[in-house]
């Protein structure tokens, strides 16, 4: 599923200052793209825009055949549930849920309980977190939480994976494991990662600098 932005303008609340403009930008289906750039330019906002968490003041966002601007909030939500996997910068696990339950949260609703559980456990195993499947995310370290957040996306097998700094809290070995898992799950799917981590550049089809994509 491709991602396409046209004549996008994003402003910041409350004063309406322009965060960035993107004239045209496209991520072809199946492409693995790494976006790098300085902090505060709007990389996280770009991912949120691509996921349809909000729509821009002007311009159009397309996700595959879906024109996100034309869809209601609920319709965008359904598209996310079916097609988009998000790894948040702040991880955003529900801290009263166990690692396994957090992963199960991301499963498509039609999945049977048995299949969902098997997929969730396999995803946790893939990121080396199977042993801590029953631990509440509140007691996990930042690195462990990061791996659970990635496992949530792995288990859901979405058409598009959008990951915001997925390796920022991981050591080299775990960063490698997580990136391998992400790349593997995104095989033949679209993967967009925002990261400052230069260790992972080699795993992507394309690396771009965010400041070159945008105008202010």
């Amino acid at each position, binding site marked *: 599923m491709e991602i396409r932005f046209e004549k996008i303008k994003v402003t910041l*609340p409350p004063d309406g200052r322009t965060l960035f403009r993107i004239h045209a930008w496209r991520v072809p289906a199946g492409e693995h793209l790494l976006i790098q750039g300085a902090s505060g330019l709007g990389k*996280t*906002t770009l991912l*949120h*825009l691509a*996921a349809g*968490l*909000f729509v821009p003041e002007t311009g159009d966002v397309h996700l595959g055949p879906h024109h996100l601007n034309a869809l209601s*909030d*609920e319709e965008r*939500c*359904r598209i*996310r*549930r*079916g097609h*988009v996997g*998000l790894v*948040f910068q*702040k991880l*955003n*696990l*529900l801290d*009263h*849920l166990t690692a396994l*339950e957090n992963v*199960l*949260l*991301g*499963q498509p609703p039609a999945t049977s309980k048995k299949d969902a559980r098997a997929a969730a456990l396999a995803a946790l195993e893939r990121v080396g977190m199977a042993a801590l499947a029953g631990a*509440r995310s509140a007691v996990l370290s930042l690195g462990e939480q990061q791996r659970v957040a990635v496992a*949530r996306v792995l288990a859901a097998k979405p058409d598009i994976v959008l990951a915001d700094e997925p390796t920022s809290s991981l050591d080299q070995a775990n960063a490698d494991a997580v990136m391998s898992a992400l790349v593997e799950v995104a095989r033949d799917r679209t993967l967009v990662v925002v990261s400052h981590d230069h260790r992972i550049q080699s795993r992507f089809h394309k690396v771009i600098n965010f400041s070159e994509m945008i105008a202010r």
Partner: protein
Amino acid sequence: MSPLRLAWINLTRRRMPTVIVLVAIAVSVAVSGMLLRLYILSGARFATMAGHVDVVVGAKAGGMDILLGSLNAEGEYPGYVPYKLFQSLRDKQTVRFEDGAVKETSYLKSVTPFVYFGKYRQHRIIGTDESFFTNATSGLVMDAGKWFAADGDVVLGSDVARRESLKPGDTIPADSWTGTRTNLQPVSFTMKVTGVLRRTGTVWDQSLFGTVGQAHAVLRQGGLTGNGNWDGYVLNYFLVNLDAPAMPALETLINGRTVGQVISVPREKQRLAELTNTGRRLGFLMTALILLLGGLSVTAMMITRFEAMTIQLAVLRAIGYGRRAVAWWLIWEGLMLGCAACVIGAAVDGVLFPWLRSALGAALPAPEMLACPLWQSWPVWLTALAATILAVLIPLHRLYRQNIHNSLRGV
């Protein structure tokens, strides 16, 4: 993961906040429930008062004591008036006093004897005669069996028969009512049920009726007739119906020249209403205020709880949970909290209310005279549930307006 499961996990895993909210709501429910039932009781206190009586004559005491003691079966064992006075009033309608004075009482329509002499379980047994039932204004109708014919027979009020599963022909054990006279041993005796009264909705439903003859026998046997001036031939009250203009004459007659006191039932009821209305209004206001405060505090606590979940809700929305699913999570959580708090609050209400009621003593009708079951607290439960639902509405409103992007970024 279903909204119900999410709600259950959120409640059970965040134990301390859940317990705090639960306890706070439950206390609110319990206190409001007890207050409401006290209010209902204070309002119903006189609802069961027997009617169809114009005047009551009793031993000198406060007018209200006589009224409530006779027609609402309240208070301790009352004082005595001589049976001879009753006989004079009824039989000859001419009263002969010990000093030789004579008064005509032709204005009396009916005079009925009334003396408490025993208790069957918690129910009072009244010694009276057939006039109690056959007086055209009494409104009493026999539902089964017949009036008592001899000493030892007893007619039951409908509630007594129903509660104790009694019918004509049954024999019941009873004890004399010694009241506060702890130095006296109760006399045990048996009575044969001859009839059951149709329900009247008054205190008579809770009472048993035997003959005056048996009452006197029991009182004498138990040494319960006081100073013995009247050889044990005593009554507690006479229930009188008379021509209204004759009241002053009867008052002059009884109040001035005997140990008895006449009270006008309508007048005493009016005084009672005036006295209690202020308290009832205050009670109603207090109950309403506590209900309101309870509801508001429940709403505030729930809103605080849900407000703290803003990020969680945004995360769920971001990973694809629709508004409806998230809304159901909140609704389930509110309902579960509300229901659990109502159950706990009702249990506390159920346990503490009898104690509170007994602590208030004579300020309320006795439990055997007027039950006030737990279910009468239902408006409080409904309010608590409504408050929890209302508390959900505000986060729901925010949820529907939530900017997920901003919430996730902490803006």
